[in-house]
């Protein structure tokens, strides 16, 4: 186990910038999830740590070692690939022990390590099988087993659950958490699935266009998104973001309409154009008189405990997450009001979060 330090990590493909510059310190035993849309550079960053890509700039330290010039096999890291990358002609045992055999570990030690990992993952019965005789979930376990037996300083996961069906995915997510609780190995995990990010991570790195938009705990990233991008990316359904000019009574929209917001949080931004973010779960339904937003219900999605309501006001679509039984009827006018203290403000130009404490000129 070790801490990992990325300093000014930069990766170019020709003149194409894949990673602009990322600084990240991962504490010993921490589980860090990198999340972002496809093409944001998250997998590239992971592959840089693995040593499968060479850096164009910056440095990566694992423990006290600068691993810049080291081959992947010399970095003492293990990786779990999205498509598992099991060796098809080897049995489960051979797959898991291949890295150890290359390191010329004594046979008895190899057997002991594989047995232990197989025990943890419930693979005992399958050690003699070939990958093609296994189900997706079992292959996934073998891929993890191959990483565990190496007893590495760092685990790297490249979207390891995205090839599984939804039910298996949530099951494996729980197992991954338990596994990390048990092994406490420093882990770096890449996913595009924010649910995985929120549930697995000690800290989340939200990446966009080669930059880390925000690095923080799941609660911070969800509760105080550092930018409009993070706000829109984390949270499902996505945050409602409307642009307008703040005045004393609320938000004047470009189309001439208004959203009346009686929220003291507005005060610092009066007279200024901002992006206002409202999470769907923070919009409360009510009578149309006195409501902040009056919109027409276009679609109602019943999810069981919750109901997602899509409503339109002029050109703007609003999504609200309501409780069971609160759902309005289709085509009906509904009043939606954000709960006090739940608004987020973003600079329309830079997209950065605006905080009341330090107002920009």
């Amino acid at each position, binding site marked *: 186990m070790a801490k990992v330090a990325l300093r000014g990590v930069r990766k170019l493909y020709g003149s194409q910038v894949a990673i602009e510059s990322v600084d990240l310190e991962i504490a010993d035993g921490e589980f860090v999830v990198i999340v972002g849309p496809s093409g944001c550079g998250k997998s590239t960053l992971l592959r840089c740590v693995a040593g499968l890509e060479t850096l164009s700039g910056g440095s990566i330290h694992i423990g006290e070692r600068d691993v810049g010039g080291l081959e992947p096999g010399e970095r003492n890291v293990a990786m779990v690939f999205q498509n598992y990358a099991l060796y098809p002609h080897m049995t489960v045992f051979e797959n898991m022990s291949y*890295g150890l055999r290359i*390191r010329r570990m004594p046979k008895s030690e190899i057997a002991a390590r594989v047995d232990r990992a197989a025990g943890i993952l419930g693979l005992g019965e399958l050690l003699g099988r070939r990958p093609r005789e296994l189900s997706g979930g079992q292959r996934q376990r073998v891929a993890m087993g191959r990483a565990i037996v190496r007893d590495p300083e760092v685990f790297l996961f490249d979207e390891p659950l995205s090839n599984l069906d939804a039910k298996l995915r949530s099951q494996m997510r729980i197992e991954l958490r338990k596994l990390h609780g048990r092994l406490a190995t420093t882990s770096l995990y890449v996913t595009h699935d924010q649910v995985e990010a929120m549930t697995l991570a000690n800290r989340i790195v939200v990446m966009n266009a080669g930059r880390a938009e925000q690095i923080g705990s799941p609660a911070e990233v969800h509760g105080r998104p550092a930018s409009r991008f993070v706000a829109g990316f984390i949270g499902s359904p996505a945050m409602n973001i409307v642009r307008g000019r703040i005045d004393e009574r609320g938000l004047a929209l470009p189309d001439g309409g208004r959203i009346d917001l009686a929220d003291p949080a507005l005060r610092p931004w009066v007279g200024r154009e901002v992006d206002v973010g409202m999470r769907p779960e923070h919009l409360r339904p009510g009578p149309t008189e006195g409501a902040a937003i009056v919109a027409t219900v276009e679609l109602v999605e019943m999810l069981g405990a919750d109901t997602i309501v899509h409503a339109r006001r002029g050109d703007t679509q609003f999504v609200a997450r309501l409780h069971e039984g609160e759902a309005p009827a289709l085509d009906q006018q509904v009043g939606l009001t954000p709960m006090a203290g739940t608004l987020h403000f973003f600079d329309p130009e830079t997209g950065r979060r605006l905080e009341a404490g330090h107002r920009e000129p």
Partner: protein
Amino acid sequence: MVENRRGFRIACHLILLAGVAIVAFPVWLTFVGATLTAEEILAAPMPVVPGDRLVENMSTVLSSGTERASSAPVSTMLFNSLVMALVIAIGKIVISMLSAFAIVYFRFPFRVTAFWLIFVTLMLPVEVRIVPTFQVVSDLGLLDSYAGLTLPLIASATATFMFRQFFMTVPDELVEAARMDGAGPMRFFFDILLPLSRTHIAALFVILFVYGWNQYLWPLLITTQESMYTVVIGIKRMITGGDAATEWHLVMATAILALLPPALVVLLMHRWFVKGVVETEK
């Protein structure tokens, strides 16, 4: 086919049977010829049922060849053919796998040029370059030797191209997983790429073995001693021109012997590589 009428099916089978007969009849005649005596085979309508001299004819050619044309025993020729076919098949597979490995997995200057050079030689069969090749082999003193028989035929653009195409279908993640496990390039080649290529190797071996076995022009040019004849050349030498009567029964026996090893290789390996293809592992 959507057609499933009885008459149609009978017609199909008749056509197929006719095709089989056309292909099989000469082989049958060869076999019958190998079982007759010299006199019987020259009788006006040649018999179409086997005689009783098969074992005798076979042992004659295997031990002492023909009496009048060439006295080299066919067993020596079969051995020469076997060496030639095996060295060519195995050599081609080894060389082309390594070249394809280099081209697909390593970045080096003129990599693409190297690939195209190999690819271009696809268009140059032995016959086209036969005069300069003969000169080179002759200057190297390799006439009448196994090296001379095999070396000029051993590089294969076709096999290199085939392995290249196969290697490109091997997922990159496997290479990366092997690198993470600490395997160097040759370790990856022997532990992962080679086992994955088994079925391709088997298929190529069949094709290349038959190719090497059936070489005619090249061994004809560079072998002058009977002890270096391959069996294909041997058959040609047995058919005498001029005064001496060709001992057709012995020629036929030799032809059957020449036919067996490639047929055997095809039959045995065929089962093996069909099994492999069905169990596609990727």
